[in-house]
């Protein structure tokens, strides 16, 4: 979640009174944020992803004014229509645009930094690194409307990008400008690039890459023009709402002007800052929070969160939601706002009366535990390995063909973890290799889950709980394994026998199917010396692996369950 840095002085100016650090931290916490510390003169906090309106000092100040009861209820914006038109061409791969104008802002160095930060934080979160949307800010007084949003063949584009001293071609910008290098891939597959130009032909920006230097916002800028372009209309419009309402906090009259967006077939006015209305029952609030608030108290708490609230009679409250609160989808979101304004520290933890339930462990865990206890009693050390492993370890090292039933990851982060394990014995061998310094015998076991592809299942995978064990010492033979496995099965009150079987991981003639009550549950054998060589193990190893799922079913039947 995004880290935001603000200047306390700037915050105090926007809030309208001085604040102690403790107060600021308390308010940030109440707003789901987390204070991270001070870095020189900057205060750093982490905002939550659902509250983009708190990604800059302006929005934070607006919220604190409510919590500190300096200003309650809906923030007022002075929204008017402008005569600015934006004509949208056929920008087929980035078709949506929303624009707005904020007049009479007062900026200083920190204010400009906040605007840039807000833009950047929105870019990395909601805009998905500009892939889904990107934001441009301009000094309106350098622009001659109407503005056109269009596609231009890449070779025809020339302008002076931010921070460069002279004009450059789009190709140069894409290959040499830091922003071009970083974001060029988004438009790299197209011959034509999106462009915003004004009526004089001046390039405003080349979304989603970079703006022009001439239209840059500075401390002297009085009127700011904003555009958001992208692939998702709702997102584009929402991001604009966040930006313009934040910038408007720097305008004395909170003057926001709508812009007409002329699509091929219709005209849209942006930003749409209309208030959303939602009904809320006091009883709904109290039932969810376990509180006994009066309707007046609920209304007051809503006002503190900068929401509008009017008593509509009985316990019904009409709530008005400002446009920038894009996180409120449902009345339950209002309930959380009320809890936040009320203070989580004042919510008394409670244990519900009349909620008597009987607990129990999952049968497979109960059975696993029983098996693990017997294995420990037989002298084995339990180990635990990752379910993710490498295909080579599971197959090639074990002298097995790379068979097709393995569950494979498309985006692994390491060669060591590319598949979900199909069986446990390879990791036991790995453990023996890693424990070679601790002396023999090594007796280990693992109880864990394995998976393989099975088209019959809804998730195309069959999962199984397994027990695997291994004994390694200079004198180990198959008999050592049989002795222990016999003891385990006998202790469970079941019978076991073995049938010879061929398995490439084990020595031929020293490998058997394990049959419990006549049903096959697994395999036992002396590990093939070539496998031992692969794992760099220098003593003989006997290992077995059985399905605890299958064994549990046999056990249940035997016990008449």
């Amino acid at each position, binding site marked *: 979640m995004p880290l935001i840095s603000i200047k306390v002085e700037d915050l105090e100016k926007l809030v309208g009174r001085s604040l102690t650090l403790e107060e600021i931290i308390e308010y940030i916490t109440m707003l789901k944020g987390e204070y991270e510390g001070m870095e020189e003169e900057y205060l750093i906090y982490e905002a939550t992803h659902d509250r983009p309106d708190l990604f800059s000092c302006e929005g934070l100040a607006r919220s604190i004014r409510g919590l500190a009861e300096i200003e309650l209820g809906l923030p007022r914006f002075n929204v008017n229509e402008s005569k600015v038109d934006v004509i949208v061409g056929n920008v087929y791969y980035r078709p949506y645009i929303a624009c707005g104008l904020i007049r009479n802002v007062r900026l200083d160095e920190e204010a400009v930094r906040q605007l840039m930060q807000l833009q950047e934080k929105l870019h990395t979160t909601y805009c998905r690194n500009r892939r889904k949307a990107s934001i441009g800010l301009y000094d309106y007084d350098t622009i001659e409307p109407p503005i056109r949003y269009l596609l231009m063949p890449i070779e025809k584009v020339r302008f002076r990008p931010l921070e460069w001293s002279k004009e450059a071609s789009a190709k140069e910008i894409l290959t040499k400008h830091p922003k071009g290098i970083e974001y060029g891939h988004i438009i790299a597959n197209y011959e034509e690039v999106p462009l915003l130009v004004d009526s004089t032909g001046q390039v405003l920006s080349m979304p989603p890459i970079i703006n022009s230097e001439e239209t840059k916002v500075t401390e002297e800028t009085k009127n700011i023009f904003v555009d958001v372009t992208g692939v998702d209309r709702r997102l584009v419009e929402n991001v604009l709402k966040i930006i313009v309402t934040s910038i408007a906090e720097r305008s004395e009259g909170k003057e926001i002007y709508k812009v007409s967006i002329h699509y091929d077939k219709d005209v849209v006015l942006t930003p749409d800052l209309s208030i959303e209305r939602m009904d809320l029952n006091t009883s709904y609030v109290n039932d969810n929070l376990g509180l006994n608030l009066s309707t007046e108290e609920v209304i007051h708490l809503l006002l503190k969160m900068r929401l509008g609230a009017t008593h509509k009679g009985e316990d019904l409250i009409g709530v008005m939601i400002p446009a920038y609160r894009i996180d409120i*989808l449902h009345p339950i979101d209002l309930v959380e706002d009320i809890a936040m304004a009320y203070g989580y520290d004042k919510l008394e933890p409670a244990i519900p009366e009349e909620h008597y339930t009987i607990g129990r462990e999952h049968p497979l865990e109960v059975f696993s535990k029983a098996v693990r206890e017997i294995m420990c009693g037989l002298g084995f050390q339990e180990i635990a390995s990752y379910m993710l492993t490498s295909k080579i370890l599971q197959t090639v090292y074990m002298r097995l063909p790379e068979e097709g039933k393995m569950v494979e990851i498309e985006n692994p982060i390491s060669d060591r973890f590319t598949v979900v394990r199909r069986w446990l014995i390879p990791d036991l061998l790995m453990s023996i290799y890693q424990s070679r310094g601790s002396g023999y015998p090594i007796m280990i076991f693992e109880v864990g889950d394995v998976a393989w592809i099975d088209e019959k299942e809804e998730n195309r995978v069959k999962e199984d709980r397994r027990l695997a064990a291994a004994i390694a010492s200079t004198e180990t033979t198959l008999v050592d394994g049989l002795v222990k496995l016999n003891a385990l099965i006998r202790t469970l009150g079941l019978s076991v026998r073995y049938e010879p079987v061929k398995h490439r991981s084990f020595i031929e003639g020293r490998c058997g199917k394990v049959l419990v009550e006549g049903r096959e549950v697994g395999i036992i054998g002396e590990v093939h010396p070539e496998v031992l060589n692969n794992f760099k193990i220098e003593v003989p190893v006997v290992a077995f692996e059985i399905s605890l799922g299958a064994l549990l079913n046999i056990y249940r039947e035997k016990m008449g369950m």
Partner: protein
Amino acid sequence: MESAIENKIVVSKDEYKILELVIRDKVHDLEELAKRLNIDKSALMRRIAELESKKLLRIDREEEEYFEVTEEGRRYVKGGLPEEKVLRIIKEKDISDLKELYEEGKRHGISTNEVKIGIMHLARLGVVKIEKGKLIVNKERVEAVVEDRIRVRNVLSLIDGMVIGKEGVEERIIKELRQRRLIRSRKRKKIIITATRLAHEKMQKGEIVVARLITRLTPELIRTGKWREAIIKPYDLSVEVPKVSPGRKHPYMEFLDQIREILVSMGFEEMKGPHIELEFWNFDVLFQAQDHPAREIHDTFFLKRPRYGTIKDKELMERVKRTHEDGWITGSKGWQYKWDPRKALRLILRTQTTSVSVRTLKVIGNRNYKAFSLDRNFRPEALDATHSMEFYQCEGIVVGPKLNFRHLLGFLKEFSRRLGLEKVKFKPAYFPFTEPSVEGYVYHPSLGWIEALPGGMFRPEVLAPLGIKYRVLAWGIGIDRLAMVVLGIDDIRDLFNLNVEFLRSKARPIIPSMIR
């Protein structure tokens, strides 16, 4: 036979020899015993102490004075007293001149000084007289004095070490030897070993038997009762013995077993679900929009094989789709986008066991219950000391018609109390599928406040498509962190350390509050 053996006292061969010496040969002095047995005194003392503990010997320590022959005395014992030497010369030759006597002494290897000492004593004894430089010998006294001197020398040769008063020598001789500084008195500690009455009796009746020393009991010794006639060699308990390691559970798995016990004791039933999951259950049902960043390759493992699953419950799919698109009947605005069923069928490794919670809700429905899961999840994190691509989550839901947010806080508080972490505080938080949401912090004495208990109430958009009308409290705790605190592990990779030596080195964990 029993009683016959019972009357007997079993001693070792060496102990028996000591008893014989003390009782039969009446040797009581430790030094003497050591000499006779030809063993060193400290070894002898250990055996005597053993016999004392058997009430057969008594050890007494006393102080005594004895004579010690001086350096000069010892010389005279060897070469004779000076007066004897002078007498020998006088008897051979009639010498009256002193100078001549000195000369004669020198020829016999006797110093003039010694000759002078000899003459002095002979004079004292009345054998010679000096008059005007001439030596006058009283010949009648000579023989008697020679004899007397032999006696004195004899005494001198025997008196060394004798206890004063018990030497049986004439007072006169002792006095002379003392005056001539040929002997002096000394003090010493003495250990006296005497046999008890019991020892005398048993010895007489032959009831002290010699046993053999054995290092281990054998079935033969046990069966025949011969162990009674044997001495089992004692072990030195300070000696390092070989190390053994018990067959034991993995410390982390053991910790998880205890978490299960705690949750079961709180009335929770364990639930399970697949590790390989459809995005549908992992995200869509949880009302996480299909373009949510958590659903991208940086945060989720997608499968190469198999790629897509199926969902038989088409109605559920439709309800979820509607909820995402416009909120359906949940009272929500929804996410307002076109929901893609194909995306929902994509197979992944589950990123959260919350998928198990919603699967459980679908199956159990509207009933009063509490359920938990304690299983593994996966996220594409590069494995290092603080990150792991595989981690356990402890997930819980509480379902009931009248539950509220404070009850959630109550459960979180109670759970952490049972983990031994009594101090808890709650802060607002954001999770996509719960509202209101909370982050619980627990106080650890050495680590301070730890972010440990995230939870919330499932959103109506999650519950309505599943047909749940009750409220559901939910939490999902990253139990690995808590395990590391309890197990004293700093490196998250050590939770899955395959080295047996490492596993053996970890003390068996017990959650402190469980044994308080």
